[in-house]
């Protein structure tokens, strides 16, 4: 069983988000990058399948050389090897085109992604990869079992869950629940040492055309000052919510 895990390198969840003075770009200055949290669940699941069912795990990231430390972390967590597609991750379709090519050429049975990257919040890449390759697709997975040449995936639906069975090859977009929080792995010394010598190959990107243009970024308007209400005067809160905020 061959698994390809797609890792997006994103600003640390505690990072303050700033944009360049012209508002055209995200300002990376002073920002730490980490494995996209949703991808961490998928990566851990893949490493578990490696340990229990003999899968081989390759990670792929579309990005410039600055994403390599994040890829090494994925190797330290247990992936066998890594592929970096050398290009700026311009948009979801572009990224998916690169991943689809890697997935097809490598003959992977399962392409595991996160459900969304926490930077651009596209939620586009996994569906695009499935569409480009005409693979089965399950989004928002909170459980996964592999039996023979098929997966049984549990997917979150609005207001519930459903179990879906799909033949290989398949694209699975995971989130928290795919493995439990407590199963996530922090790289240990042995893993970190081993990761240094694991293969990380670099391939060049395919070009795609796009009709999507980013005009610019803004920060959301900040809230005014908090109105504090005395804990012995809770009725006042109800009054304000009704009369001032008009939300009840």
């Amino acid at each position, binding site marked *: 069983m061959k698994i390809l895990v797609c890792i997006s390198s994103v600003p640390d969840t505690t990072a303050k988000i700033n944009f360049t003075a012209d508002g055209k770009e995200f300002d990376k200055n002073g920002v730490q990058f980490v494995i996209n949290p949703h991808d961490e669940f998928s990566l851990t699941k893949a490493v578990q399948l490696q340990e229990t069912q003999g899968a081989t795990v390759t990670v792929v990231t579309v990005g410039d050389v600055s994403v390599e430390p994040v890829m090494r972390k994925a190797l330290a967590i247990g992936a066998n090897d890594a592929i970096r597609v050398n290009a700026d991750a311009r948009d979801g379709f572009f990224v998916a085109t690169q991943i689809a090519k890697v997935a097809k050429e490598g003959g992977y049975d399962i392409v595991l992604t996160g459900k969304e990257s926490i930077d651009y919040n596209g*939620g586009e890449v*996994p569906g695009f990869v499935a*569409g480009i390759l005409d693979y089965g697709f399950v989004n928002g997975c909170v459980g996964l079992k592999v039996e023979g040449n098929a997966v049984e995936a549990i997917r979150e639906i609005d*207001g519930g869950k459903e179990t879906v069975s799909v033949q290989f090859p398949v694209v699975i977009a995971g989130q928290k629940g795919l493995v439990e929080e407590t199963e996530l792995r922090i790289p240990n010394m042995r893993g970190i040492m081993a990761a240094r010598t694991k293969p990380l190959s670099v391939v060049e990107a395919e070009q795609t055309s796009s009709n*999507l243009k980013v005009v610019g970024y803004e920060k959301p308007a900040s809230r005014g000052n908090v109105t504090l209400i005395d804990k012995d005067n809770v009725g006042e809160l*109800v009054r304000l919510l009704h009369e001032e905020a008009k939300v009840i």
Partner: protein
Amino acid sequence: MSILVYAESAADGHFKKAALEAVSYAKSIADKAGDTVTAVAINATESSDALYKYGANKVLKITNDALKNFSPNAYAKVLNELKDGDTIVLPATNDASSFAPLLALKSSSTLVTNLIAAPSNVSPFTAERKAFSGKGIETIEVTEGAKVLTVLQNAFGLKENPVSGSEEAVNVSVSEADAKEKVTQVQQASSDKIDLKEAEIVVSGGRGMKGPENWGMIEELAKLLGAATASSKPVADIGWRPHSEHVGQTGKAISPKLYIAIGISGAIQHLAGVNSSKTIVVINSDAEAPFFKSADYGIVGDAFEVVPKLIEEVKKYKGV
């Protein structure tokens, strides 16, 4: 030409609020572009009146057993078959977000997800979308060609725009074979639960609630307000509440009209998922809790004292 919009219905056949918001959004584009709105309803049982109310001129009704279970590929195929213009609007629900990229590929469209505001311009299409988990707003432009758009719940919102619409039953050429995914089991939560992403009011508890046995008051307050319940991440991780209630950067992102946070410190990852709520109320015993800086109203006090009082006051206000 018309704007096609997917009016998603819930398992019980009713249109989801997200579907009505998507119709409202489609109508806002149609008005600017001089187009009409055509809604697609798949296996819905509710009358189309709800869709006319928000501006759908025409409703295409599909009743098809092959679409009873969701398959991204089959749904994308149906929507692609029915389009007759260059714009398709979808709600940003789990299902529609899943088939949106497939539909964009099939219809050679540009995909724009998680839109939060009406377009400032329809040609070229220019609008704001969510980015950086709510810590940023991205303005994009689709320079030319067809587009598939998804609209974030509770962001653009519902806008009534009644039109006298009409209904048409349509057949689509879709079969079980179009689905690569076979649904073998569905577990639906009880239908009286309010969907967290659609809820107008959310009452949320954190580690300050001390244990799952204390959620009774959270639920009572929520019930009184017609609200959904939510929790911080650690609360879901320890198993006090189900994962599906976890809100924040790694859980669900929500933007209700009113978010009431009880015993939650207000960590940046939590805020990322809730800071687009219209009004935020924080109840915390620690006056230094960071959440107060991102709140509209705050009460410094012990939840076990304040929440029962709040329940009494809401009862008084509601006259129950």
